[in-house]
């Protein structure tokens, strides 16, 4: 149970700045997700918080105390690594007990704590096994158990689900959320998967090239993306970007398209079929039947490729031209620098 604050964090590796002046506040008990494409610095930021790397500039504060000089062990954080980093030569029990043994906690208490956590994560029957004898999901739970058992102030997750198969990932997502609800701890979670971020986070931090692009709740990010990057990164399938020139044709959009407007963003589900004179002509390239909906890949007159999610009644064949407009209230307009207008 702790707050976390980052103040003007900079990190330079061999003259390359990988984190640019990052400022962030995380409230007690919050579930924060760092999301961004690979190489955006999200894992580096997590390692700076953990104390595995040291900051080049700025301060890391845990519970309003600067911890820059504290070692990883003394910051009270627990980390779940992408590869789980379970000690392969130790049993599940020894893996979970290792941190407690290092903290010189009496044997009996260690046994009790490990048993509690094992029960919580349904690992009771696996305690004597070695990590290599466990499935991916079980290893994941051991890694989480190893973090929980030390009762840390802050949990740090570094892409913990990326090694699991799709089905398990979805169920582990749920489990992690439930765990957060039960423990009420501050958690920082790194992922490159925006779906994971959207479904799990209280607060999402979108990073790109070492900069924070936007911080907000999943809903805020989805409905009010601050710039083209966030707009394109959050949401699946991706948002479509139509040039303002082309969108101007639609009369009802005209008031929103000012002289600064450069690009118009429309989410695939916000397209509406319409009559010929009201909409933009879209040549269908291909379509995917998804059951409740159909995803149509099309091409606008200027060659821009767009994705349109419609109800299945709109059956379209490749080569066919359909006419689409969009819900004016759900359109995002960006200027030439990609910023939201």
């Amino acid at each position: 149970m702790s707050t976390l604050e980052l103040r003007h964090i900079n990190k330079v590796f061999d003259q390359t700045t990988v984190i640019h002046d990052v400022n962030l506040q995380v409230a007690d008990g919050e579930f924060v997700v760092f999301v961004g494409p690979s190489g955006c610095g999200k894992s580096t930021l997590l390692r700076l918080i953990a104390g595995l790397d040291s900051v080049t500039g700025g301060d890391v504060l845990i519970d309003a105390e600067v911890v820059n000089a504290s070692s990883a062990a003394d910051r009270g954080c627990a980390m779940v690594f992408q590869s789980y980093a379970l000690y392969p030569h130790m049993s599940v029990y020894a893996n979970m007990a290792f941190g407690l043994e290092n903290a010189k906690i009496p044997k009996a208490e260690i046994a009790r704590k490990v048993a509690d956590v094992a029960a919580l994560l349904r690992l009771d029957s696996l305690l004597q096994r070695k990590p290599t004898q466990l499935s991916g999901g079980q290893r994941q739970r051991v890694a989480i158990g190893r973090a929980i058992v030390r009762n840390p102030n802050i949990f740090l997750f570094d892409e913990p689900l990326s090694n699991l198969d799709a089905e398990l990932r979805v169920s582990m997502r749920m489990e992690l959320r439930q765990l957060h609800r039960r423990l009420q701890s501050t958690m920082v979670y790194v992922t490159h998967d925006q779906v994971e971020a959207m479904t799990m986070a209280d607060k999402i931090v979108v990073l790109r090239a070492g900069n924070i692009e936007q911080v907000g709740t999943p809903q805020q990010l989805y409905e009010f993306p601050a710039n083209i990057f966030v707009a394109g990164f959050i949401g699946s399938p991706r948002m479509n970007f139509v040039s303002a020139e082309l969108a101007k044709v639609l009369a009802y959009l005209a008031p929103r398209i000012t002289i600064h407007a450069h690009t118009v963003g429309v989410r695939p589900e916000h397209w509406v079929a319409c009559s010929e004179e009201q909409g933009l002509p879209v040549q269908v390239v291909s379509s995917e039947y998804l059951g409740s909906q159909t995803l149509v890949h099309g091409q606008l007159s200027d060659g821009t490729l767009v994705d349109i999610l419609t109800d299945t009644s709109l059956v379209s064949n490749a080569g066919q031209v359909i006419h689409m407009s969009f819900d004016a209230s759900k359109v995002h307009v960006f200027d030439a620098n990609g910023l939201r207008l």
Partner: protein
Amino acid sequence: MSVANFLLRTRGRHRLHWTDVVTYVYLVLGLVVMFAPVSWLVMSSFKSESAISQFPPTFLPYSQQTVTVPGFDKPLPLFEVLNTEDQSAPPVVMAQARRIGIMAAMVDPKQPEVQVKVNVDDRVPVNELDFAWSNYIDLFDKFTFSTYLFNSVFITVVATLITLLLNSMAAFALSKYRFKGQRAVFLLIIATLMVPPTIILVPVFLVINEVGLLNNLWGVILPAVATPTGVFLLRQYMLTIPDELIEAARMDHASEWRIYWRVVLPLSAPALAVLAIFSVMWRWNDFLLPLIVLSTNDVFTLQLALNSFQGELNTQWHYLLAMTVITLIPVTFVFAFLQRYITTGIASAGVK
């Protein structure tokens, strides 16, 4: 069954493919070339003193049968004497009373009074298979052999343990810490591989003398515990241990010593086994360093004792051979039991 299947696999389905033939010939040839001298040595170590000097030499340890004949103090050697007059008659077993030149005085053990003169060419010794265990038993009784054995074992075990500890510590630092001059230190260690040990023999001797470790087992143990080969081998292996494990341990409040002792060392077991094998072989077979450091009988290692057995005028071959066999045994066992680690160690160090 499966072992037999495994060993007798052939490339050809029903009859031998030519590659099978080549393989078998090659392997059998290799076996003979490498194993024949060793088996000859082992067999000869069971020969009695007289059997060793016998000509022509035999592979198996034969010794001549003897018989006690009334009227003679010592047991007499038995021979089969051919009947020179009647070729078809069966040879007679007789004991040799004495021999003068090419003629021997023979007696029939049943009629000790009658002596017959026989040409030595007309008789064949009666041999029996006889393992001279006394060669080995005498070693432990007669000589300070157990002292030599203890010295050798002590040097090998202690030096190997220290070697493993020191080299793995150096390798841990070189593989898992980043510090200024890390590359330089590593290259310096590797560079010592290029210095032949004989070149530094005199300086080493002077240093050992200066610190007063002459004729002390530690004088043999300490100079060679830090081996560049070991550091290199372990470092390369430790590089394959994921850094995340060490970071996880660091987050788990483990001290650097505990990380080394509880995480890195157990995970380096295959490489440690390889180094242990090497170290045992080096130390056990080491001759030069003990030779210059240890000069009194009570601190001799087996190798030195073997050397001193080869006397200037007289060499007791039967003891020498028995001792050689004993010196071979530990290395053979270590190698036989740990050799699979050599392959796994090299394999995983290379692939991962």
